[in-house]
């Protein structure tokens, strides 16, 4: 399990952020004194640091520089000062990436995931989603059932992983749309129907043409 260190001075934001990250399968370390940040990193139990730029006492850049003296742990800056110079400065201090406030959770999660994948290439094999006898490989865009497999588009993969994540539950059309938008696929209501139809066509190839049930006026479910 990946453990993230959150160095953020706003107590409410810190709490909410750590709650969200924990609900997405990360462990969090939330120091209240920023003097301890380096010690926690030294202990070696965290895998990534989320560092706010504006901290009381020492700013994020300074902490970053001091961490870099002994560790190559990935550092993601959280910044509300959005002038380019600040970002540039953060990078020269040894930061790996930055996310601007107000950040959206899906974007922050995507950046964290990308950084972790880059920094810990051997940690964990490709994520796959299993449901009944189906095996969905999101990164490859492949759906397997037994020996057979079909290639899915990005849209179809996202739709299916949505459905697999909440089986038996009616997922509303707008939920699908939002989920896809969070992954930077900007579909609208009409195109959602089109992609659903195509997905059903591909499922038919795996003898599961009626896997997805339509609830008119509500949404879809499996």
């Amino acid at each position, binding site marked *: 399990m990946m453990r993230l260190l959150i160095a953020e001075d706003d107590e409410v934001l810190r709490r909410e952020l750590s709650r969200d990250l924990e609900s997405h399968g990360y462990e969090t370390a939330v120091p209240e004194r920023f003097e301890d940040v380096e010690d926690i990193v030294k202990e070696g139990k965290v895998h990534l640091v989320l560092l706010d730029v504006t901290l009381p006492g020492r700013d994020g850049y300074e902490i970053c520089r001091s961490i870099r003296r002994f560790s190559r742990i990935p550092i993601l800056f959280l910044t*509300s000062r959005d002038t380019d110079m600040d970002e540039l400065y953060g990078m020269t201090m040894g930061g790996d990436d930055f996310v601007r*406030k*107000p950040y959206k959770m899906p974007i922050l999660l995507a950046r964290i995931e990308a950084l972790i994948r880059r920094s810990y290439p051997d940690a964990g094999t490709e994520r796959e989603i299993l449901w009944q006898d189906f095996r969905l490989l999101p990164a490859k865009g492949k759906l397997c059932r037994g020996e057979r497999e079909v290639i899915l588009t990005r849209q179809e993969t996202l739709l299916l992983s949505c459905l697999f994540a909440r089986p038996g539950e009616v997922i509303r059309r707008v939920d699908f749309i939002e989920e896809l938008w969070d992954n930077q696929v900007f579909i609208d*209501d009409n*195109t959602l129907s089109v992609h659903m139809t195509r997905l059903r066509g591909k499922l038919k190839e795996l003898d599961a043409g009626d896997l997805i049930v339509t609830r008119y006026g509500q949404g879809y479910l499996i």
Partner: protein
Amino acid sequence: MSGRMYWRQQAVPVLVQVLCLCAASLYLRALGLTWLQLIPLAGAYMGGIVLWNLLHFLRKRKYFHKMAVLMESLDKKYLFPMVWKDADTWEEAGYYCLMKECTKSMLEETEEAQRLQKEYRERLETFVHDMKQPISVVSLIAGREKTQDNRAILLELEKMNHLSEQILYFGRSESSHSDFRIQKVDTGAVIRECLSMNKQLLIQNRVSLDIPEDIPKVYADEKALLFVLNQIVYNAVTYKKAGEVPKIAFSFLAAGDNKLLLHIRDNGCGISSEDLPRVFEKGFTGKNGRENRRSTGMGLYLCKKICDGLGIGLSVCSEEGVYTRFTICLSILTEK
């Protein structure tokens, strides 16, 4: 600076001298000189006065002419006393000192005003940045459960964020120096970020989008470009046509060797032909603005100002009731 004015000024000293000459003549006459003997004296004296005054006038005229020429050549007129060093009479030196004093004090006042303005701008920026903290927190909380209420909150947060960006860029646009940084920009990524920022606005208004693949990369200031796109997208939704699915289509066209024309076209209510030439004016709201009371007339003005500062072309064409199309002219990045 007419000649007559000069002679009027010199009238009193000349008159005094003539009176003195008369008195001297009467005295010499009493001592026994004849009138005839006094004529050469009076003639020479009067001649001297006239000649001196004439030369003095010519000198003064030349002096002022030189000043006028110098003033003409100056870009910042108030710097005149700093440049003018030529004071060789007692009177000129006196005026010169006063003038210099005036300018110095004026410059101090201006500097103080500029300093205050800069401080104000910086404070404002800090406040706006601090405002993003609570926006972050609320959007994290509201983003957890997908309920109707939370979606409404997220939409309002998007508007708040949009307004706070406007304040930032307004503050920047009014100051003389600009914080723009030209760099390589992935145009497609900026468009996607813009759409993500307006996620609730676009989804809740059921906007249909058309985004081309493989848009060339450009040279621009990323955040400024984002701001401009944001404003255009925001306007497209705000001024949508009732009873029709709003559409926003991005398209691009390479023009010449290194220009990219990025079109953003909507099917909204359009802009009337009399309003169209004025949409980039500060505070101009026009017919659409009068119908939508929230309109401030600042959004497009800021866009234009930013684009001008960056050397980016921004133009608009529209047909009332049919469409509005903004075109951004960017410089393509040519990889070597």
